[in-house]
């Protein structure tokens, strides 16, 4: 069986994740740490996508345009209020990165079964960074949610 479909999917997903981080950064310029670090993390995903291009049969920069994936259950509470959209966006990018991390795990396992050490190495290099991306989004949520969820902003 070929790994190409999975590689292509992962390639597209990393591109989409890079765009997702860029979108979060652009949407939240006034949240300075979120803005700057999200842009740094977008670069990681672009690097992953470039490394995958060698194997996925796609050229560098050539990828399916994908919308940010739905997160399973829409978060009505967070979407309703403008001030909570930061929490919603962090939650979305966290779930997106988690999905990508899971894909890396599957790729790593399949590469091991197929004796493809170069793909195993790639997964070993990239997956820890994807996990750091998920941890970052979760860490931001941990710090920001008490204030944003419990103290109403004033005029």
């Amino acid at each position, binding site marked *: 069986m070929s790994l190409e479909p999975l590689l292509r999917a992962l390639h597209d997903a990393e591109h989409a994740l890079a765009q997702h981080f860029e979108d979060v950064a652009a949407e939240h310029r*006034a949240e*300075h*740490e979120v803005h*700057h670090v999200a842009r740094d993390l977008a670069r990681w995903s672009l690097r992953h996508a470039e490394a995958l291009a060698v194997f996925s049969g796609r050229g560098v920069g050539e990828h399916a345009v994908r919308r940010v994936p739905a997160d399973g259950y829409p978060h009505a509470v967070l979407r309703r209020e403008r*001030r909570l959209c930061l929490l919603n966006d962090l939650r979305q990018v966290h779930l997106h990165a988690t999905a990508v991390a899971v894909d890396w795990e599957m790729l790593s396992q399949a590469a091991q079964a197929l004796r493809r050490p170069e793909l195993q190495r790639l997964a070993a290099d990239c997956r820890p960074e994807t996990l750091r991306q998920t941890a970052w989004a979760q860490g931001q949520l*941990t710090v920001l949610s008490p204030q944003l969820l*419990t103290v109403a*902003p*004033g005029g």
Partner: protein
Amino acid sequence: MAPSRDRIAEPWGARTPYRPGEPWPVRVDSFLADGVQPADVDRWVPAASLLHSNGDAMDIAVRDGRIVGVRGRAGDRVNRGRLGPKDLYGWQANSSRDRLTEPLVRVGGKLVPTDWDTAMSRIVERTRELLDVHGPGALGFYTSGQLFLEEYYTLGVIAHAGLGTPHLDGNTRLCTATAAAALKESFGCDGQPGSYTDIDHADVIALFGHNMAETQTVLWSRVLDRLAGTDPPRLLCVDPRTGPVSRSAAVHLAPRPGTNLALMNGLLHEVIAHGWIDRDYLHAHTVGFDDLRAAVASSTPEVTETVCGVPAEDVRRAARLVGGARRLLSTVLQGFYQSHQATAAAVQVNNLHLLRGMLGRPGCGVLQMNGQPTAENTRECGANGDLPGFRNWANPTHIADLARIWNVPPERIPHHGPPTHALQMMRYAEQGSIRMLWISGTNPAVSLPESARVRAVLARPGLFTVVQDLYLTETAHLADVVLPAATWGEKTGTFTNADRTVHLCEKAVEPPGQARPDLDIFLDYATRLDLRDRDGGPLVAWRDPESAYRAWQRCSEGRPCDYSGLDHAVLRERGGVQWPLDTERLYTDGRFFSDPDTCESFGRDLVTGTPLGETAYRALNPSGRAIIRSAAYAPPHEPPDDEYPLRLITGRTLYHFHTRTKTARAPQLQAAAKEVWVELSAADARRLGIAEGDMTEVATARGTVRAAARVTGIREGVIFLPFHYGYWDTPGGDHPGGAPRAANELTPTDWDPVSKQPLFKSGAARLVRVAPGAGPAAAPTTAASAPLAREVPPTEGGRAALVTEDLSLRPGGSVR
């Protein structure tokens, strides 16, 4: 008669050379008001420096109930009698006619005088109302690096255990947060490993982004005295500017701003590649070496040259210098702390010492320096976004311990995340969820990045602002209530310098008018709020500095910063004493405060800043070793481009402190550096058609500043602005009335994700000439702002600045 010297012209005074291992000779500096002789002085009152972080010990001269001068303390371990210019002349600001002498409240848009009861009642009413309607998250406290230990501790107890708000930070966030963060990452806990006495023993001293000659003049005198003696140390200087440090250095690296981590990775690559490492030490006392080796494997001198703009051969020379040292002392300051990837870069200095096994022995030490005089105490007492006693907010046992000491239920102490840092508090205030901000002893309208934004936040109608200060600062102009505070010399308390030396600083004179010690103000607030412990007793059960200090001793006991052996009697008898009692250096036996149950922090991701958590920490470091943490270089967030082709860095000058509230009110200091300037290289000056003294406009995406040009030896492509100049002594008062001059009009709001320290030394700028100059820029000629042009007259203080330097004394005061 001891010789006298103009210490504006010669900031470091007379040389007293000494050789390795010898004690630093005594030299007693004194400066008295015009016409006052030593015999006229009624009393000498023990104190220490409050205008920089060195912690120089002095006596305040009192005559007829007024401060009339200062004298260095001969026997003190920190300065052995010496004082720097800011201490010699700065005391005059205490008696400035524009001290605040009564509380002010805003009535109909104007600040009008009132009494303490009215002012405090307003604050207490607003506090109660906000607690009832919005909860403790609506209250924020932003304090200083210049209050005393007892005041920080009391404020911390009020905020954390009384009100239950996590929003408490100090302006030490701007100067020392990265020092604390780097120590936590490497050693599991804050606490300065080294000692100033390491200068007496070192054969190589490496200064990483530390312009010691200007920021700690007395410590630099100590280095100069070693350099003037037999068998002097060799220096490494890492700084994009030139100055006394770079001129004394065997190797000077002037990297592109924002590339410190790449430079450090390059140095460590060479140290590892040449085997200049102590494998036994690494094996016995550290974790993480293999990760570091892999992380720096590609950081060759050539790669380093490309990224940092430093010649590969210089990288090799620097690595040979630190790699060949027998006793290496490293110091780190704002060049690293306020630059891109701040904590990651500072941590690599710790790694250099771990690799070389050079820690905890004479001459082998790391000094992650502080910027402000009492910065160490905000960190220890929990007023800087940490919990008191270096306790770990993520460790429930530590929270329970604090709850026991304070006799409150553990859930009252907010610990659902790290305490809120200053810039995040500003964001919450901007959004309106923080509705009351109590600012004590600091001036964010000038000192925080992006001044226009900060002014707008502080002026928000929905934000109730309390400002507690000595003068009507730019920030006080924007306040709803202004409280007049007493300062150094007018109140008693302790504080601790960058090498863990604690001084008792005693009251010498009465404060002016109705001004009150900060401690009394906080105690009054706690009493009026009727804050209680779980048994109904008063939460804050102390009434004066000594009882507050005793409460802190109990809180710190058994923690790394253990003050239990340092009571007032010991401090009075011995002068400066290090914590823990009689501990010159930490980590002498290769053991650290990094056991998972002891450590202050479980660590953070050095790139993203994400807390790593207990599970990961236990797996990495189960048995209390030092942690070698590595990180990859990432490009700065605002690189130069066509519109803004230069890199702007900001910093301080030798003669001023913070926003000049005190130093501009000392005539000798103000005259030495009276107006803002901008430094640029000769190459950039030629290209831009700018000559010494020309009026220029500096612009970034945030704003503009007008400043006279000073052409110096700074790296090409980099410009420097001093950050001291605001608007309180201009017609604008709290904002630019005419041409803007505050450096923070230009700086970006960006901070290190690990330490949350603002990155003042980042951002892209443009410089244009707007008018010819009427003469040279008003920049000092003595240090890093020294002009290339020969015809610029030297900075001098003249007769009014003559200081007595007595070289005849031995420690303890006996005449040789």
